[in-house]
């Protein structure tokens, strides 16, 4: 599954756009603020590029489609970017509506063809929605701690019940977050519920 990346000179703007995508259930998004971090990435199908960084980016144009993020329809980089192959420009000064519309179009362009879906379900395979969420290589200890978090126990209580220090529990929790690809306890708990960890 290909991802979207946002390259914006201001991290807060990049993060807000990422939240917008999250609201559209698009979660595979990377936010970058330094053009040096940009490499040709086949794993991306779309790069959303801040006009301020356009010139730094352009020499490193990658395989993915790119759209220019502007704050005015009069932005001087628009025509140059479109001539250079940008699929569109998106004005975010009026809010996320135009941005959302553009992403919806791009998403539908990359969606599975219906014939593909029919083929998938004609197979005698388990429906994808029913496949268990991977336990993501969690260790026995990490699963134990995640289960306790799921039961609503705070880290100090977990430390006392597992006879370890608070710092050790924190280290385990950080590893759990990394392996699950989450940023917070709430997200980890939601993932754990999806894994049916409370029933294992």
């Amino acid at each position: 599954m290909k991802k979207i990346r946002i390259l914006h000179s201001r991290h807060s703007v990049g993060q807000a756009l990422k939240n917008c995508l999250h609201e559209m259930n698009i979660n595979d998004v990377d936010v970058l603020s330094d053009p040096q971090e940009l490499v040709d990435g086949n794993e991306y199908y779309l790069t959303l590029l801040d006009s301020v960084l356009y010139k730094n980016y352009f020499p490193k144009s990658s395989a993915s489609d790119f759209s220019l993020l502007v704050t005015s329809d009069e932005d001087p980089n628009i025509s140059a970017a479109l001539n250079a192959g940008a699929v569109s420009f998106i004005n975010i000064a009026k809010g996320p509506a135009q941005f959302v519309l553009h992403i919806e179009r791009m998403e539908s362009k990359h969606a599975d063809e219906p014939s593909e879906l029919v083929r998938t379900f004609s197979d005698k395979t388990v429906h994808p929605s029913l496949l268990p969420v991977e336990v993501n290589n969690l260790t026995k200890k990490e699963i134990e701690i995640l289960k306790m978090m799921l039961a609503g126990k705070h880290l100090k209580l977990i430390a006392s019940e597992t006879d370890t220090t608070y710092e050790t529990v924190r280290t385990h929790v950080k590893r759990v977050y990394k392996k699950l690809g989450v940023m917070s306890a709430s997200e980890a708990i939601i993932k754990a519920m999806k894994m049916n960890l409370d029933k294992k």
Partner: protein
Amino acid sequence: MKLLPDISGLSADAQTLIRNSYRQIGEVGDGELDEVNAVLENVADLLDQSGMHNESRDFYNHIYIQSNDLLAKARLLRKISASFNAQREYQIAQQVSEEALLLMRQAHILTENIPELFETLTVCAYANYFASKPKRLHQLIAEMRSYFPGISDQSVRLRFYFVVMLNILLRNRWYMLPEEAITHGEFYLQLALETKNWNTIATAYSGLAFCHLWREEFEVCRKKFEVAFDYLQNRNYDLLLTAQVYTAVSFRMQNNISMTERWTAISKEVAEKSNNINYQGLVYANLAWINAKRNNLLYAEEFAKKGFEICLTFRNPMLYLCIFPLLKCLLKGSQYDDAGGYNFLLLHPSLKSFPEPLNEKISAMNAAWVEGRNDLRCYLEDVVTEAELSNYF
């Protein structure tokens, strides 16, 4: 042989019903796969009705794998989708229901299959409401209308009317609903009362209350929720939470801190008891508002961020319930750039809409923020003040 899961946590009646149903496998001869599957599907339905959704889906999947009949497969996917809907897993529910519909369309639809197609469309429409897809919801309802005259089952007809109500909410983005919303809600209620089913009636009263809330008719809204509470009697925690949380929101919109606090405490207990994370997000949002109003800004910020994270994960269209208290905290903490990011989201087309004066302030703040201006404080102050004036904060 598909084994029965542990059902010891269910009521004695439910256990008996499920065990009796499961025992019927013994009465079916070897090699009668269709009949065995029919028994298993009945067991799965009972498990799902008892709230054992993961287990019921396990059964549906077991049958799905063995079946060669497109219509049967479509029906199983429809049930799987409904089960995900019941667990508020709307994204998966929406995908699965669309797939069920796709399979139905591959099969040769006879007149006798129209009710099943209609049910699939209903489940799909329901999931599309929660996935905030107004255009798709509208399409589905248009198709359902064409089949509606041929539907005689009153419970199926009622579900259609409920979906129509959802369409009105989504089309108006939960803001200043037209009179049509109330007329339709009252009509739905009259039909629901005829069923004498406590859950259907409570759903109708809650739906009507919800419509009154977004017309800012708070007194009527709460009266309708009160009747829903009488019917619910601490059953159906999901609906109970909806009614409790939005009763709190109705008080919040009247700037009544003590009553908001009272209903937030009640809903917090139920959300925790039923492990309903989505509603815990809204409970945090209301706790953030209460603390922000009392100038306990550290607590307010913590609650607002927790609520925001959960509401965003569940794609809750009422994200504003977390964002306005958070904007107040960020204003006090001079974190204007961060506030700009949250303010930006308020203009998202899938979220609840606001009165025009408030929209103008939010848009002005957004324009200043994306340009990176250094006078964001004034714009942010305007947003927070206007939100207070219009009862959104």
